[in-house]
């Protein structure tokens, strides 16, 4: 039954060393330049909060913030993420303290199965950064690149509105 699995491994010469900042912390990885940023985050950096739903930039589950801009990490080659500032879902909470959006998603039912949630929260975060007082239309548009199969989006909109309300009071 035993097979020899000591696979000789890839020729590593094509790999390059890249520096990036992830959730405020510097990181260096040694990867092929065409490795997807999604795989660098999940593999090399062990940040599995960012998910793969489609691999083609349609579902938004892989969304992260790159230099403050929302991007689909499944479509970004690692080399193009070098020297950028990345925020993933793991970077939102401050220790035990959830961000306003995270708390709102929890309270309002914005997360059901949870697989779209990291990307959805980051997209919401990006929306609120760009439009501090979004209308419902703005919210719909801002999240239209993040697919959710569970919620029908209603409670996600409520979560965003709730987070806004909290921010206004806070």
């Amino acid at each position, binding site marked *: *039954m*035993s*097979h*020899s*699995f000591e*696979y000789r*491994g*890839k020729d590593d010469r094509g790999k390059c060393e890249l520096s990036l900042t992830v959730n405020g912390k510097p990181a260096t990885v040694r990867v092929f330049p065409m490795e997807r940023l999604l795989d660098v985050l*999940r593999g090399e950096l062990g*940040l*599995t*909060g*960012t*998910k*793969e*739903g*489609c*691999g*083609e930039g*349609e*579902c938004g*589950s892989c969304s992260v913030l790159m230099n403050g801009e929302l991007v689909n990490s499944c479509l970004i080659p690692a080399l193009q993420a070098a020297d950028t500032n990345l925020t*993933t*879902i*793991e970077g*939102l909470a401050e220790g035990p303290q*959830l961000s306003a959006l*995270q*708390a709102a*998603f*929890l*309270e*309002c*039912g*914005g*997360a*059901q*199965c*949870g*697989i*779209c*949630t990291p990307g959805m*929260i980051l997209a919401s975060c990006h929306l609120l950064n760009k439009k501090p007082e979004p209308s419902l239309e703005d919210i*719909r*548009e801002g*999240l*239209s*690149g*993040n*697919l*959710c*199969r*569970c*919620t*029908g*989006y*209603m*409670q*996600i*909109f409520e979560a965003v509105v709730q987070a806004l309300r909290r921010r206004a009071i806070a």
Partner: protein
Amino acid sequence: MTEEHSIGKSVPRKEGRDKVTGAARYIDDMTMPGMIYGATVRSQIPRGVIKHISFDPQFEWSEFVVVTAQDIPGKNCIALIGDDQPCLADGKVNHPEEPILLLAHADPHLLRKAVDGVSIEYEPLPAVFTIEESERCSEIIWGMDNTLKTFLIAKGDVDRVWAKADYIVEGEYTTGAQEQLYIENNGVIAAFDLEQGITVWGSLQCPYYVHKALMALCNLPAEKIRVVQAETGGAFGGKEDYPSIIAGHAALLAMKSGRPVKIVYDRLEDMTATTKRHPSRTRHRTAVGKDGRILGGEIDFTIDGGAYATLSSVVLSRGTIHAGGPYYWPNIRIRGKAVATNTPPHGAFRGFGAPQSLFAMERHMDRIAQAVGLSPVEIRRRNFLKPGEATTTEQTIREEIDLGKLLDRALELSDYTAKKARFAEENAVGPFKKGMGIAAFLHGAGFTGSGERYLASVVGVEGCADGGVRVLVSSTEFGQGTNTVLCQIAAEALDLPYEDVRIAQPDTNQVPNSGPTVASRTAMVVGSLVRSAALGIKQTLIAGGMIGTSYSAEEFRAACRRYIAEHGELRSLARYEAPAGVFWDDQRYRGEAYAAFAWAVYVAEVAVDLSTYSARVEDFVALQEVGKVLHPVLAKGQIAGGVAQGIGFALYEKVIWQNGRMQNGQMTNYIMPTSADLPPIRIFFEEMGNVHGAYGAKGIGELPMDGPAPAIVNAIEDALGTRFDSVPLFPEDIFEAVCATGER
């Protein structure tokens, strides 16, 4: 405590924090030491004989694990209901994407190339792709006549009604396949060692289904198979039976290699190779009296099961039983039939046959209305089931449901009458034509007929060493709120804070078999058992003198700790018992089909843009009677999500088939609604209670899938005056119909 303190409140989702912080671990987030990756070599043709398999010499095949049908230690089948579906094709293939052999390697990229490096030569055989082709029987692909299953429901004497009818109304209605499109693709990790046997971690709904399938496949006894459900990113039925296949594959690779094996599909493989909603064709012929009351009718309900029987008999059963809708049929004959085609087997998807037959019923009611000259509202009002009347399976409605009132309320909430009047005027001018559509329906919760009795579900509740309480079920969380609701029920039963109750991860080594997480049974049936088991540990503590009949939370915790310290464990099991007076005849397909029905009336407002022929839902009212709302946020979430999927089913989601293979297996080309596409979904509940459900709850997970498609198509017909009898209904279809009738 007389007031409910947990039930009826929107307590925090048990695993919610992990989900919003990215800490929740799904299969592809998990690795194991020494883990390698598995992949599947699949058939490229719909039907044929395998002549030759060759391996491209550019690969070092000795580095790969290769598994074929010959490697299967037990029976080469996926044990479910029948045993016609092989785990790996052995000499013959019956559908595109059918698994033929398995590969594993440490390098997932090389593995992908190696899959392409396996060439298979076939001798193709003629294949069958549609219900009609299958029925023609010019090619027999399954059994004697391509028929996977039939059911007959007969009530009264339908052959005598035609002569008395003032109207005879006929119609044929079809629905297409629908992809569940959970955002997390199917995935499992399997490990094997001689001592423990097989362990599988999976994205799945039913750990014990997988357990049963692996026993047969791997020829191992029950105690040598362990199945653990990982956090699951959506399922909707698409992970009810399919995981037995992917788990079987990973287990075989693990057995052969001695290494843990992860198999995770990408979106293209998941869409093209796994189950979908059964396509359907329903034919109605109805005898109606002058007053619009149904005298009787015949319904032929046929579904396309794909290449193997899998779950088709059960989907057929539910679809057949629901085919008459929430109406009184004094006489009826319903013929249900599932046929085989050379496509990947269809499977479970929220609603499970009912969305298909109810689409037909609700479209047909509007057709009857037209024939008789009554409004869609009035035709339904005159035919609704009333308490004391019997369904098509002769189940007497024992609860005081007033469907007429439910309808009235839905019409009021949707401003139906005023809008219809307004649209009638505005449609004469505008570039948009607007319409309103109604769907009235019911959905039976729990397994059909004697199903729950056969399942014989067992639930456990135990005290923990720290004084907390733990629920032990094989029922899985995949977004719908299992963890939360079952903990709420236990907390309510024990008068404890919700925070004191936790729930074990579904692990067949740790939890009893509470049945599959399907059929909208979890809150209602399993929840009832959770309540019983919880009361069981309370009784134990009371009997042991540890607490009195009334106690504080702290007293309970202390008593629990003490009891465990003294006795080692504090656990109570509850087993399902069929309620008295509930009787189902499997032979004649008659009797109490479901312990409870939830009832609903949905109203859709649509606008059709005549320059692009696109229909858009502008407003949607979903009103349902659900027994008891256990958790308002979760309940609303279920309805909203189900309505969204129903809107997709009606207007956006189409599987494009070619020779039995899905051509649009990517999210770019299989279209589900985004946040920009959906209307406000306005959700309202009524609660009548339910003697058979925990705290009066009825199952609601699937209910919302039944209403949207017929309500929307009814609204489109209202807007355009053109008949549409099929979903999905695309702008291209509206265009063809509108142009055919000579309108612009």
